[in-house]
C-alpha cells in the first residue's frame, strides 16, 4: 500500500528531515511510526499525502508514484487518504455533521447520501447524538473522534494519523487506538505517528522507529497476546 524507496527530504534552507528511508506497508495492516519530535514523522506523513515531494527516492502509495505524479493529482490522492490531525482541523463555523460530510461534499455526492453516510460514520465513532453540535462545544476526545469520522466517511483505503492522542488522557487514547484497530480490521491500511510508547507496546503492531531522519528500527508485529 505504501512503499518508500531510499527517500530523502531536504527542506529549503538545508535542514534534512528524512535520509535514505526505505520500507513498505502491506494493504490492510496497522503500523505505528514513532521517534522523538523532529525525527521526521510528520514529514513522512506529508509525503504520503502529497503535501510535500521527496527530494530523492520514490514514494509509492496505492500503486502510484507520488514522486513523479503531477501537482494536479494531489487532491485525488488526498481524497483517497483519510487524515487525522493532532489539532483536529475542524471548521468552527460548521456543525459536526457538516464537518464530517466535507469530503463527500467535495466528491459531489447527493445531499441525502451525504447525510446517510455521515450518520453511519458518526455512529462508528459513537457521536451520533452530537450530529448538530458545534465542534467547540465538544471535548478534546470528542473533537478527535469527529476528525476520525471525517477521515473514514469517504471509506478511503488508507488512514493516516499524526499524533492523534497528543492531548488526550491514557484511557481516551486507548479507546482511540482500538477504534483504529477496528477500522484496520475492515481492510483499511492505518499508519499512526505517535510517541506514546507505552500504548504502542500494548497494541503489539508493527512499529517503525525514526531517529534524526533515518529509519532506526523496524519492529514486526508480535502475535502472542
Amino acid at each position, binding site marked *: 500500500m505504501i512503499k518508500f524507496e531510499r527517500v530523502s527530504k531536504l527542506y529549503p534552507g538545508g535542514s534534512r528531515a528524512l535520509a535514505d528511508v526505505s520500507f513498505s506497508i502491506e494493504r490492510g495492516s496497522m503500523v505505528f511510526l514513532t521517534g522523538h519530535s523532529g525525527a521526521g514523522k510528520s514529514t513522512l506523513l506529508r509525503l504520503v499525502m502529497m503535501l510535500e515531494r521527496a527530494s530523492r527516492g520514490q514514494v509509492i502509495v496505492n500503486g502510484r508514484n507520488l514522486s513523479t505524479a503531477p501537482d494536479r493529482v494531489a*487532491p485525488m490522492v488526498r481524497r*483517497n487518504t483519510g487524515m487525522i490531525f493532532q489539532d483536529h482541523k475542524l*471548521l468552527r463555523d460548521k456543525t459536526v455533521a457538516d464537518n464530517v460530510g466535507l469530503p463527500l461534499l467535495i466528491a459531489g455526492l447527493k445531499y441525502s447520501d451525504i447525510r446517510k453516510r455521515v450518520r453511519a460514520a458518526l455512529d462508528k465513532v459513537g457521536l451520533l447524538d452530537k450530529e448538530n453540535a458545534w465542534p467547540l462545544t465538544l471535548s478534546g476526545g470528542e473533537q478527535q473522534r469527529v476528525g476520525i469520522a471525517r477521515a473514514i466517511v469517504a471509506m478511503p483505503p488508507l488512514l493516516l494519523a499524526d499524533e492523534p492522542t497528543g492531548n488526550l488522557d491514557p484511557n481516551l487514547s486507548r479507546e482511540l487506538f482500538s477504534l483504529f484497530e477496528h477500522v484496520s480490521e475492515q481492510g483499511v491500511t492505518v499508519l499512526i505517528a505517535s510517541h506514546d510508547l507505552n500504548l504502542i507496546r500494548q497494541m503489539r503492531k508493527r512499529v517503525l522507529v525514526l531517529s534524526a531522519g533515518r529509519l532506526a528500527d523496524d519492529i514486526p508485529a508480535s502475535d502472542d497476546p
Partner: protein
Amino acid sequence: MSSTKWLSQLRRKIRAWIRRHSYSFFSSLGVLLKHKIGTLMTVLVLGIAMFLPLGLYITLENLDDMNLRQDEWSAVTVFFKPGVTQDEVGRLAEELEKRMQPEIVRIISPEEGMADFREASGFGDSLEMLEENPLPWVMQVSPKPGSTEQVEHGVEELTAYLQSVDSVEVTQFDYKWLQRLGRMMELGEAAVSILIFLFGVAVVTVVANTIRLDVASHAEEIEILALVGAGNAFVRQPFLYSGLWYGVIGALLAIVLLFLTILYLDRPLGLLLETYGTVYDMRGLGVYNSLWVLLGGGFLGWLGAWISVQRYLRLLRVGGRLGRR
C-alpha cells in the same frame, strides 16, 4: 471500457459537478448576506464606479440624438442667381429629391424672404422704398439624418453637387459648426472609452481587494478543504461566485442610479429645452444595453475574484505552505 459504462460515468461526473457548483452558488450568496454592511459598502462603491462612465455615455447619446434631430441645423442654404425662375428652382428641388433623398427641401421665394427680413430687421417701411425685390430665390436642403459622420458626409456631397449647378450662385453652410460638433462627440466618445477602461480596472481592483480579505479570513477553512482533498476548483468556486455577485449587484445598482438620475433630470431639462422651443424625451439605457452592463459587471467581478484567489492558490500547491504550522 464499454461505451455505456463510460457514458454513465460521465453522467455521474456532470451531476457531481453541478452539485458542487450549486453548493458554491448558494453558499457564496449566503456569505454575502451574512456580512450585510460589508457587502453593502462594496456594492455601493462598485455601483458608483459603474454609474459614472454609464452616465457620460448616456449624456453623449442624448446629445447626439438631440442635435441631429434639429434638421435645420444641418441644412445647406442655396442662393440662386438673380433672374432664376420659380420653375428652375422647382426642377432642381425635384432633381435633388431623386438624387439624394434629402430630409427636407424648403423653398423660400423672394417675397417670403422679404417678409421675413422685414419682420426680423425692423426696417419695415423703409424697405417699401425699394423699387424691386433684390432678394434671390433661396432653398434650404438638409441631408438624410444619421450619425454626425453620416450627416457630415451628406452635406459634403450635397454642396459639391449644388455648386456644379448653373443656376446656383452660392451655397452656404456653417460647416465649422458641424465639424466642431462632430469632433466634440468623438472626443466625448474617447473620454467614455477611457472612463470605461479606468472604472473597469477600478471595479476589478475593488472586487479583488474585497475577495483577498475574504480569502484571508477563510485561510483556515481553505487549508482544511485542501487537506481533505478539495481541488483548486472547489476552493476557488465560492470566491468566484462572490465576485460575480458583487459585479452583478453593483451593475444593477448603477443601472438603477442611472434610471433615477434620468427621471430626476427629465423635468428641468424639458423646461430648459422648452425655451428653445424644443420638446425632447431623454433616452435611457434600454433593456438590451442594461443586460450588457449586468453581464459586463458580472464578468469584471468574477475577474477580480479570480485574480485574488489565483494568487492565494499558489500557496496551496504541493510543497507550499499548506498545512504547515
